[in-house]
């Protein structure tokens, strides 16, 4: 199991063996429009560092599209195609076909979409490219609501979470959609979750996804200080607590069947995670218990599946 930032002796994380200083310094990645402390920009720079310059980004409406730059300016060191909200999968498939036809099979097509475009609006087309196993790396940076349009709930918003469309008194009553199970149901070659607080784990997964072909899907937690009503400085802390509290466990699914936990979540920090974020302020004690029990149940399932690794888990069957 990957150790994340902790090791037995408790040394500080040498977060990643990095070369991205060299990569980033070749480009002007400064001056983007993201809010202070934005998780999406932390994720993107580390992903691009692994993927390298032979990458094309396909990006729907969302924070990433808006904050990349002010037309005609962009921070992106690689081609960055803006596409309609629901069309990321289709557009990415088109880009893939074009690259393949022009003999550039080695170029990575990176679909870079938020939770709104992935969990909700682009879901149909996403299912289509997954079913066809298109050679695309689809990465969802999940900040758990439609943030740049004003914090509307998405199907990725956690149970009990506040948003402008699930206000106090009508907090989100549905649990977060299980995107891993959906992608696994398509039996894609590779699914993994990731958190910016665990950069070793994250970059290893991006590297693994890069090595494979077919549809690879990464589901990454992306702290959003204004949307989560949190202090910008706490972004990485929250990304770590989400993992440790089991609300956002780190795992992979290979070929839709083999589950592997890549970090053992301690189970600690649940209360602190909620308490650091204004979006959970209105939750009742009962709601908190429901959310935690749900997280624990999911984590227990993952653990069972992890331990049964090597055997085939039949999709849809409870372990």
């Amino acid at each position, binding site marked *: 199991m990957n150790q994340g930032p902790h090791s037995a002796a408790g040394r500080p994380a040498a977060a990643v063996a990095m070369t991205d200083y060299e990569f980033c310094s070749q480009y002007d990645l400064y001056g983007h429009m993201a809010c202070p402390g934005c998780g999406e920009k932390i994720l993107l720079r580390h992903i691009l560092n692994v993927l390298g310059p032979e990458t094309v980004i396909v990006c729907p409406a969302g924070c990433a599209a808006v904050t990349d*730059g002010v037309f*005609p*300016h*962009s921070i992106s060191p690689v081609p960055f195609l803006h596409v309609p909200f629901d069309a990321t999968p289709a557009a990415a498939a088109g880009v893939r076909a074009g690259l393949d036809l022009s003999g550039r099979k080695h170029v990575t097509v990176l679909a870079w979409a938020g939770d709104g475009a992935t969990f909700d609006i682009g879901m149909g087309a996403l299912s289509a490219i997954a079913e066809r196993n298109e050679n695309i790396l689809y990465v969802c940076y999940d900040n758990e609501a439609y943030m740049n349009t004003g914090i509307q709930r998405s199907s990725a918003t956690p149970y009990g979470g506040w948003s402008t469309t699930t206000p106090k008194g009508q907090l989100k009553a549905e649990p977060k959609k299980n995107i891993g199970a959906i992608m696994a149901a398509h039996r894609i070659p590779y699914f993994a979750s990731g958190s910016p607080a665990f950069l070793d784990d994250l970059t290893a997964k991006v590297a693994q996804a890069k090595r494979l072909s077919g549809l690879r899907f990464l589901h990454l937690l992306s702290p959003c200080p204004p949307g989560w009503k949190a202090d910008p400085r706490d972004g990485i802390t929250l990304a770590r607590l989400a993992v440790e509290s089991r609300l956002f466990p780190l795992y992979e699914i290979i070929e839709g069947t083999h589950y592997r936990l890549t970090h053992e979540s301690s189970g600690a920090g649940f209360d602190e995670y909620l308490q650091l974020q204004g979006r959970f302020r209105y939750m009742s004690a009962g709601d908190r218990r429901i959310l935690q029990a749900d997280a624990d149940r999911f984590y227990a399932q993952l653990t069972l599946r992890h331990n049964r690794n090597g055997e085939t888990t039949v999709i849809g069957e409870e372990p």
Partner: protein
Amino acid sequence: MPELAVSSGSMSWNKTGSWRSSTPLHIDKTPPCNFNCPAGENIRGYIDLLKHYQTAEAFELLTSANPLPAVCGRVCFHPCQAHCNRHGFDLAIQVRLLEKFIGDWGLEQAPTKPLPQTSGRKVAVIGAGPAGLAAAYYLRRKGVAVTMYDDHALPGGILEYGIPAYRLEKDVLQAELTRVLTGIEFHPGMKFGRDFDIGALVEYDAVFLATGAHQSKRLHIEGENIPGVESGLGFLQQLNSGEKIDVQSHNVLVIGGGNTACDVARSAYRLGAHVTLLYRRTEREMPAFAEEIEQLRAEPIHCEFLVAPERITRAENGTLTLTAIRMKLGEPDESGRARPVAIEGSQFTLIADRIFAAIGEDPDVSFFPNAQQHDDGEFDFSGVDARLAGKLFVGGDLLPNPRTVPHAVGSGRLAAEKILAQLRGEPLVAHDCVVEVAGPEDINYRYFTRINAVKWQTGLAAGGALSEQSAHAEAERCFSCGVCSKCDNCFNFCPDLAVIKSAGGYQVNLEYCKGCGICAAECPGGSLRMRQQ
């Protein structure tokens, strides 16, 4: 018109630094281990080198402040450990074991480095204890010729003649002293005031006086001079000189509660005596180092607390009778410790074959009959002789400092620096400027995993000494309090790529830093923090 609208410019014109309301600053604080080391060691620094298996460099750094790491790794009372920020978290970094590891490495593997040519400057050092040795060592390494005098046959002072061999092995001491004394002219058996005097010192550019405190304090009771009643330090000296002392099955009384008393009691016990230690306050007030007391209490040595001696008599057959009185604790005295008060009529007697008085030592400066002593214990030698005016420096137990080996070493090194500055005709530059000491609140504990302190300590101490592997594992636990550990977190977690990493360290690009504070929040040891603009 292109078929597709394409951005061609970068965003670097967008100086997002203007969004910022607070600014991250990389300012190292002083780690509490360093701050509390009386010898002035850069402890965090050598621990960091051990993390990278750079033992040779660690030895180099450690001996740049303390030439006696193998000794201090054994006898230092390690205030560094008591103040370690990891102490309250799980278990203090075992600095003493690390120091011992580095010191022992040095005894076996330190390369012999050529000393600089002497420049013609000459300094005399009187007293070859840790203070004199440290001064001589650093002076010689700066090209000053050093002549060292000591009244004993061997160098080391208390290290050689006071501290018993079961705490500081003689071969270790000898090996370390051999290295330290390389290039230094040592004259044993030369007592200042008896075998030579001020006249012999006039030819030197400076004189460092570090004769320690060797005169046992008197008990001031009836019978303290009768045969069989002896000084504890004298007993340790005899023992350390290899004299045969027969106290097998004798009843031995030790009077006192300091390090000397503990060492006397434990040494006599090792020679087969039945030992009783008498101290006029309670165990809590004992001035000996905590570890020493702990070890004393772990041995079958009987302790009588709240007891003061009143009178000693001697019978025909040589048996001694000590009359003692019981005490109780009263109001605190000037030292802050509770003052013992006699309980009327509580006298009782103890029978003994030998009694050792170890209630403290005073310096003997009879070689300067006209020396003054201030109320705080500091000596004033300024008027002793015009020929030494401005040339006399003092260190070690002669100073009113706590009497410990690391204090002596620190005072010796400081004296060397003062002498060097004076020889150059420059004022002394203070180089260890403490900005702020890093406290527990500076640590981001999320980056550290609690260990099982008991298990860990047993594992480390297994075999008595650290292996390279266990030294590394122990070093890895260090928080690097207040000092950048080059973990890359600030660089990696900045959403705005505003932390610039270079060979020299990390810098914030204030043109683009939005002041989110992530870098400071994720700095494990607290060397990076936010300042409001």
